[in-house]
Structure formats: C-alpha cells, structure tokens
C-alpha cells in the first residue's frame, strides 16, 4: 500500500470520526417510562412518539426516543425506578402517581421544575387545583399527565326496579353535588333495595377490594386531615372513628359485604359491577368505564349499554356536608440522572395540549388537565367527559409525604378490622393509631 493511499485512509478515518462526533452532539437520547392499561391508556407514552419530529424541528436536534410502556404492578414499577435511579440508569421521564413526589424528591431522584415551568406556555393552562398535588417542600416536581374522579357508580337498572323515576335517576348527580342527597341517603336506599329483594344482602354498595387512594375520601368526608398547615403528618381520631363507624355500620346493616376486600378485581369485581344487575352502588374510578365497555359488556353494546344502565355521581356528602371525590393525577417527572432535562421537558410540553391530552382523556375516560380542553370540540362533545368534568371542582388528593405509605397502610388495617368484625370502630381506630405511632414515631400527631 502506497504512502498516499495510507494517508488518504487516515484522512477519511479522521473525517469520519469527526463527522460522527459532530452528528452525535446533535443526537439526544430520551427514555420515557410509563405504566398504562392497554389499549385505552396507551397514549401516556405513545403521545411522545407523535410529537417527536415536531420537537426535533423546534430544537434542531435529533431525538433518539425510547418508550417503555407496560402494565406492571405499581409496587414493582416504583421499585424499578428507585433501583434504576441508584444504578444511574433511570429513564429521563418517569410517569407515576403524584404521591411518589413525597418519596422521590427527598431522595434526590427527580428534579424540581419551578424555574423552568414558566418557559413553556403550555403549562399555563393546566387546571390550577392540579398543581396542589405536585408540590413538595415548596416546589413543583412534576407535570400533570391526567386527572380523574373517583365517583360512585349507580345502577340505573336497579334504581328503576326500586321505583325511581327517570327524573330521579338523571337528577341524582346534581342532588348529590348540592349536598341534598347524602351518604346516609345512599345507604338507606341500598337497605331498601335489599329489603325489597332487588339486590342480595351485601350488594347494596361495594367499595374497591384492595388498598388504594379511594378510601381516603371517607376520612376527608368526616373532616379528617392527613397533613396539617405546617406540613406535618396528623391523624384526627374523631374522624377516624366516624369513618370506621360508617364502614362497619354498612357491613352490619348488610349493605356492604364483609369480604369485599379480597375480591378479585378482574375475576369478580369488574364483571359483576359492569353488568349493572347485581350491585346497586359501586365506588370506582372514571377509567373503569372504558375497561367495562371493552372487556365486560362489549357484547351487550358497550358504551350504549353502560349509558343506559349505569350513572356516576360524586361521593355523597358525609359529616362535612359536602359531596367530594378524589383525584389521583399521574405525573410526568424528570429524573435527576437525565442528561437532557430541557429536551425531556420540551417533549412533555409538546404533549400537554388539548389535542394530545384529549386522545388519552377520551380513550381512557380520564379527566382533562387543561382548561382549554373543556372548550375543545372533541372533549366537550364527549358525553362521558362532559358529564364528569365538574367533579374536579369537588376534588381532594393524596398527600405528598414520605410517611404517607405508613399512614395509609395503618388506616387500611383499621378498615379491614372493622369490616371483618375483628374490631368495632373505636377498636379499629386504636389499631390504626397504634400502628401509625409505632412506625412514624414522632412524625405523627394524634388529634
């Protein structure tokens, strides 16, 4: 090989390396991790693929987008992020429950966004109340991805059997929202349905069959607080006892099954409630609707069957006199290990538009996060969303606090105790408070 050819080869090699390096500088790798129930929630991650080219054009870079989306259990999903963060392999964007801010912010796994949110006008239109659940230590740590309401689903079919008129049935959500029709009325209606043989004992009202956010609204509904004004964890024993009295009383009166906790979600709970012919009232979440429509009543007409036979309303007023619900927004958080947090935020901003969020909201029956969505034709014309969006005005949320996990597990122990008859309401409250004090020590104040 002549020296000229060798020189040319070296030149081309060097040129190639330099060109590659220059090209690599403009190529940014972004990994997004989402949990979604397919197919109705797939837009959580898939939306990023839709805006990828748009963001590339805006920033003048090439994005190597890696979307990881499945329906793993929450516990495994959250552990995965914690371990990946510590291993330096965390995704750039993680979608999870807002309450994880309470654990991941102090751990340093996610970054605060206060200084950068203002740079993206898309975020200006987010429903203001949603930001409340995204704060920790005075800063904002995530961008809402969706919102939902956790309503009471009522069987129109069974209420008709009970002698309710169509007017009575259709006006129920308004009467509940106004505080005219209370939780006590709901239990009385369920008892009447059992007495008249319209539903079997224990099928007057079902709540969820496993631990979860919903249970907190019974405590809120009795005036209870989890976090005080100073940000410290508290438990109100009076509200706790009243909550357990409500749940234990429902079991004692035959309205609620003593073994509702433990029912299999997919084998028993969903297929039973979706048929609308067995359970009169069921406490669920708005996203249950498309799941039922696709998986449980598709052969009966899907949405049409559900509209005909099931309605949804706020949780009727309890001791506070106000109807409530609870929203548990999922939130996009940016990993502190991300090398390109600006690009990650740009991608999140690009999908935080009525156009993109509507797709998720409509397919999965999650409520919109932007004011503009209410005005958009697709959202406003959606019968389901337009019938539920008002619930955001009555919503509550979980706290963002590292102790929330211990608090909620202890609270759930009391629910299990009172519903299985292992303790009365006062005894259940003692169990829960003792558990909280043992695990949280000085971190909990009993009021």
């Amino acid at each position: 090989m002549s020296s000229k050819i060798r020189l040319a080869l070296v030149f081309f090699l060097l040129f190639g390396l330099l060109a590659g390096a220059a090209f690599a500088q403009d190529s940014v790798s972004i990994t997004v991790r989402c949990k979604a129930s397919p197919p109705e929630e797939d837009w959580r991650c898939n939306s990023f693929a839709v805006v990828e080219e748009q963001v590339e054009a805006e920033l003048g870079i090439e994005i190597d987008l890696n979307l990881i989306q499945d329906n793993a259990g929450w516990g495994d999903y959250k552990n995965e992020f914690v371990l990946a963060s510590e291993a330096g392999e965390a995704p750039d964007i993680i979608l999870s429950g807002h309450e994880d801010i309470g654990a991941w912010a102090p751990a340093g796994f996610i970054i605060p966004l206060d200084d950068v949110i203002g740079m993206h006008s898309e975020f200006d239109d987010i429903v203001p109340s949603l930001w409340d659940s995204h704060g920790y230590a005075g800063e904002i740590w995530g961008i809402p991805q969706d919102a939902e309401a956790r309503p009471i689903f009522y069987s129109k079919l069974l209420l008709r059997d009970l002698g309710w008129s169509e007017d009575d049935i259709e006006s129920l959500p308004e009467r509940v929202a106004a505080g005219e029709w209370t939780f006590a009325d709901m239990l009385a209606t369920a008892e009447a349905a059992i007495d008249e043989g319209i539903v079997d004992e224990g099928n007057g009202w079902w709540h969820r069959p496993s631990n979860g956010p919903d249970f907190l609204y019974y405590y809120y509904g009795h005036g209870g607080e989890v976090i005080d004004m100073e940000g410290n964890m508290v438990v109100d024993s009076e509200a706790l006892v009243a909550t357990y009295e409500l749940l234990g009383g429902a079991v004692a009166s035959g309205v609620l099954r003593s073994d509702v906790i433990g029912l299999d979600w997919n084998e028993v709970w969903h297929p039973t409630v979706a048929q609308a012919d067995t359970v009169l009232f069921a406490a669920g979440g708005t996203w249950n609707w498309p799941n039922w429509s696709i998986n449980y009543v598709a052969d009966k007409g899907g949405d049409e069957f559900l509209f005909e036979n099931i309605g949804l309303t706020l949780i009727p007023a309890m001791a506070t006199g106000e109807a409530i619900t609870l929203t548990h927004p999922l939130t996009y958080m940016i990993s502190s290990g991300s090398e390109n947090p600006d690009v990650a935020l740009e991608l999140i901003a690009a999908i935080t538009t009525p156009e993109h969020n509507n797709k998720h909201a409509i397919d999965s029956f999650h409520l919109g996060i932007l004011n503009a969505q209410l005005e958009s034709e697709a959202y406003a014309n959606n019968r389901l969303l337009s019938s539920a969006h008002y619930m955001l005005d009555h919503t509550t949320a979980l706290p963002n606090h590292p102790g929330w996990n211990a608090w909620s597990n202890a609270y759930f122990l009391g629910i299990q105790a009172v519903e299985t008859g292992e303790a009365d309401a006062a005894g259940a409250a003692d169990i829960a408070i003792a558990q909280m004090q043992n695990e949280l020590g000085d971190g909990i104040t009993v009021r």
Partner: protein
Amino acid sequence: MSQPPDKREARSRGNALRAHLSAYGFLAPAGILVLIFFMIPVAIILYLSVTNLASSNFTSDLAKMEFIGLKNYRTLLNDQFARKIFFNTIFYVLFTLSIFNVSLALIVSLLTTHIDRGAGFVFRALWILPRITSPVVYILIWKRMMAEAPFGIINQFNNWMGLPTYNYIATNPWVFVVVVNGFIGLSFGMIIFTSAIESIPRDLLNASLVDGSSKLQRIRYVIMPLIRWPLLFVFTYQTLSLLTSFVEIQLLTDGGPGLYRTEVWSLTAYHRALSNYFGNAQWGYGSAFAVLLVLIGVVLAVIYMRVFRFDELVAEPRVETL
C-alpha cells in the same frame, strides 16, 4: 533401606495436608456459592436492618446509609401484629409439612411403588403437575375453581345441584393456603421417597415376604428404617423451604383476609421491603424481618442436625472403617 522416623512423619503430614487441600478444593465451588449467595446477602441485610433505608433516602452506598441501631427491631417487636404473624408462620409450616410434605408424600410414594410400575409412574407424574406449573397459572386455576358464584367452577356445580354457594377462599383461607402449598411440597418428598424405596434391593424386600411378613409389616419393619435418612432430609429441607416461601400465599390471599389472617413472616418482609402500593418501601425495616427469619432458619437447622444426628447418618458405613 527404611527412612528415618522424622522423614516418614514429615511425608505423612504432607500427605495428610494434600488430602485436606484436595477435600477443600472439591468443597470450594459449593463454598464459594454459599458465600456469594447466602453469607454476603445475610451480611448485607443485617447491615440494612440497622439503617432507616427507604425509597425516600435510597442509596446503594453503605457508607451513606443512616445508622439507627436497633430501632427497626424495637419497631418490629412493638408491632401489634408481629406475634400473630409469627404464629401464623408456625401454623403454616407445621400443618403443610406434617400433612402434605412428609405424610402424604410418603403415602403416595408407598402406594405408587406397590402397584403396577407403569401406573405408579403415571400417578406420580400427575402429582408433579403443581410443582412444574408456573405459580401464577397454578394459583389462577385454584382461584377460578373456587371463585364465588357465578364465576367459580365448584360454585357452578353447587348451583346446578341446588346447593348453597360459597366464597371458599375468603371463608377458609388457611385450608387453601395449606392445601395449595402442600400439593407443591408433596411432589418433592414423593420423588425423594420413591427413589429411596426403589433403591432398596429387591431381594431384601422379597426375603421379608418369604419370611412371612405382610406388605404392611414390610413397610413398617423393612422400608421405613431404610428410608430414615431421606425422611429426615425432607423434613429438614421442607421446614426451611416453607419458612421462606410466600409466593403462592401472596398470589392467593396476599396475607388476608382481614387483619393479617394468612400473613407469614417472609411475606411481611417482602411487603415491607419490596412491595408497596404507595411507594416509599421500607428497605431497612423489611430487612429486620428478614434477619429474624434467617436466625430462625439457622437455629432450626442446627436443632434438626443435633436431634436427628445428621453426622451419624452421613458417616462412612462402619464396615468401611474397619
């Protein structure tokens, strides 16, 4: 010409050393595995158990973890349900072990070795199905069978026959926890016992019949003494295995219903350290549960080895030492 005594002694010491080194060499691979997969993890969880490691302060740097002494152990001992979970574990191990893992395993082995060889093989193959089926699929089958009406297969039959229906698993959770785990554990003992029975020389078994013993007497006086070692091995191994097993319980009842009704110690360690619906998993606190489980396992292993005289069972036959 004979060697001087000191030289002979030195050579003999050298041979002994070489023999020891070879023995340690052969033991080394297993020893290294035990060190890597048992001793080091035990040391790590022991350390984690004296820290407040949780998702909210998670780090893999041991030096950065906050040392809190025995606080986790105090919290554990003050836990109002720790005693209940402990006795649940004893109940679970005792019943599963005695009814299924040893007794029924032995009965199945004896029955299937006393019938036609081919038929015995088929029956044993059927009993192995629970073990070779994925735990998730296996538990789904049980749940589908026992689910309440109109979803469960048994309740469908009850309906057709005009019998009342039940939510079987919620009503009798312990029965199902023991049975479901017992069917899996049974196959292990069955394999060990069957191979032990099959390896007894046929002439010994035939001789007892020729001498006039019945088949039951042959089992009592010939077979049982000859399978003492596998019996004790299964008893010991399965005790320790049950102490740490929780997957089937997690999938079937997740420790419920009610207040930790079927929660066992290893499941609590998992719930605390690795699985938490609302995030912030308590790695340090969960490790304290795990450390106590290791301690219980080690103590039981030592007791078994002493009580059952394992050293005698594994000693060289006396005829070899003559």
